[in-house]
């Protein structure tokens, strides 16, 4: 791969022999505008407009057949005072925010720490721990529901070998979420790779200096490693929280597969939350109200609430935007 130098004197430069000063910036501006237009249109059509429209629809009753009807704050009144399941759903999502994100980060950090020290076969280990993150989520959930199925699943087979009576896992309302936590640990590879890169980026001189000052292993971790990787940790935590707020696929597929019922099309709404509402997440509830019951106005109110919560974390992240963009600090 090489960069081919322009082979002949370009026409435009030849047309302006000896023209002094920098060439006109105008063609560059036009080029930039033309190249950016599709993406800007995309931002307006699929991001700015839907955000505004969601707020509008949240004040209406709308079923896609008749026109939206303005009903003021009634959707929000219903949301905060009457909706039978919204708090179950919100608390389930909160559970994933509180437990799933930190669990994944801590596991990923520990594994990355081990890998950063492993000299032999580092590539092999990295691939092995990363691969589960690649497995399509639907496939990994189906696999886990099978592995943990109470009757004949390998996990309970192995437990019974040790004389332990295995629990119901995905079929037990109190264990369904922790079971998904185990799945979350299995697929922590993408965060792990980021942590590993950050750990390997810590300047060796700092460790050497710490050694000279007589620091022991734990002190080196505390005073050299941690300060160096804190920005990456914070980034992983905030994006992890935003991901947990929209937790949908894993919970929905686990419910469908564990319940063993047909989950086709409209039927998906029936199994969501199985067992006993323990896996009903906020975004699932939004889906049920909006797209199984066609209460698009009410679903918009749920979407606005989700946006408000996500926005808090987005703002936290944007404060760190200089981490993305060293030039934009001005």
């Amino acid at each position: 791969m090489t960069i081919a130098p322009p082979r002949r004197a370009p026409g435009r430069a030849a047309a302006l022999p000896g023209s002094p000063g920098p060439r006109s910036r105008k063609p560059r501006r036009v080029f930039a505008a033309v190249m950016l237009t599709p993406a800007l249109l995309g931002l307006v059509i699929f991001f700015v407009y839907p955000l505004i429209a969601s707020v509008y629809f949240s004040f209406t009753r709308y079923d896609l057949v008749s026109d939206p009807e303005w009903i003021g704050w009634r959707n929000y009144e219903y949301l905060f005072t009457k909706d039978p399941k919204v708090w179950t759903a919100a608390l389930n999502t909160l559970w994933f925010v509180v437990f799933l994100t930190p669990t994944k980060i801590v596991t990923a950090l520990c594994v990355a720490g081990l890998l950063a020290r492993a000299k032999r076969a580092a590539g092999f280990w990295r691939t092995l721990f990363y691969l589960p993150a690649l497995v399509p989520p639907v496939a990994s959930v189906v696999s886990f529901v099978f592995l943990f199925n109470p009757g004949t699943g390998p996990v309970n087979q192995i437990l019974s070998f040790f004389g332990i009576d295995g629990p119901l896992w995905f079929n037990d309302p109190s264990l369904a979420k922790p079971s998904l936590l185990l799945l979350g640990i299995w697929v922590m590879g993408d965060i792990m790779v980021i942590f590993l890169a950050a750990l390997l980026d810590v300047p060796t001189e700092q460790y050497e200096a710490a050694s000279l000052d007589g620091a022991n292993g734990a002190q080196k971790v505390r005073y050299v490693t941690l300060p160096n990787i804190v920005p990456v940790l914070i980034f992983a935590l905030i994006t992890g929280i935003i991901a947990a707020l929209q937790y949908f696929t894993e919970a929905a597929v686990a419910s469908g597969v564990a319940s063993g019922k047909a989950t086709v099309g409209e039927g998906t709404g029936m199994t969501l939350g199985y067992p006993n509402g323990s896996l009903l997440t906020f975004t699932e509830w939004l889906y049920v109200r909006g797209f199984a019951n066609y209460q698009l106005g009410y679903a918009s109110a749920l979407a606005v609430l989700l946006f408000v919560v996500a926005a808090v974390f987005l703002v936290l992240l944007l404060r760190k935007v200089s981490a993305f963009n060293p030039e934009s600090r001005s």
Partner: protein
Amino acid sequence: MTMTETRRLTAGDVPKRTRVRGRKSWLLWVAENSILCALGVIFIAPVIFVFLTSLMSSDQTLTGALLPDPWRWQNYADAFTGTPLVRWFGNSALYAVLATVFMLLSSVPAAYVLAKIRIPFANVIFVAIIVAMLLPPQVTAVPVYIMWAKLNLTGTLWPLILPNLLGDAFSIFLLRQFFLTIPTEYIDAARMDGCSEWKVLVRVAVPMAKPGIAAAGIFLFFKAWNDYFGPLLYASEDPSWWPVSYALATFRGTHGTDWGLTMALTMLVMVPVVIVFFFAQRTFVEGITLSGVKG
């Protein structure tokens, strides 16, 4: 400086760490490696169990046996003959390939402009892209769904493919980060030599950003291949439009308790992704590292 050197220096290659030779005890070494091996076994076990079960007959999966007896490769053939699997794979391929091609056409030029040309409101646009990329898709799902319903395209995968013609926020972000690592001198030199802006992009910037473009392409391909929420929203009513990962989610419900067949299908859904990974491993790791932001 040759191209390869530039790429090494800029593409976030994981450097081999030269470690201080401390007096790390042999015991610690043994402990660390035992933990690694134990973790490795735990991480690989699920796939092995799924593979073994995919070779069991429906009756045998109910006995709780861990090894198949006999090894029933027929399950894989049954997965193809008993279900519209070819169609489902075709739908996944259509969705993933078109989405990726469309994304590259729209996002590569946009990312280049954002990284390398001074334009007004660049920061505002960049912040909008970050917010768009992180915003839960469910927040905007209702108005977007209504839009596609008015265009009569719900019930197909087109609402998931076509938006990529207008750029994908995460891809633009990732590509921009990659274009930023290309030294501006190369671009200025090409301009001095009289290249038009378009030629600078096509002849200089794109060849230098190949690893980044590959990473963005593969990420979007996988995102589409793995997508569940999108097909559920737009194509769930019509099995002839199902992508294979969505079909897998509905499979056990419609095929009772045949774990053997379900696991065979699960393996078939996993395999293409793993194959692509092994061909593009380097690109992958670079891409993830880059998207992960070094503070």
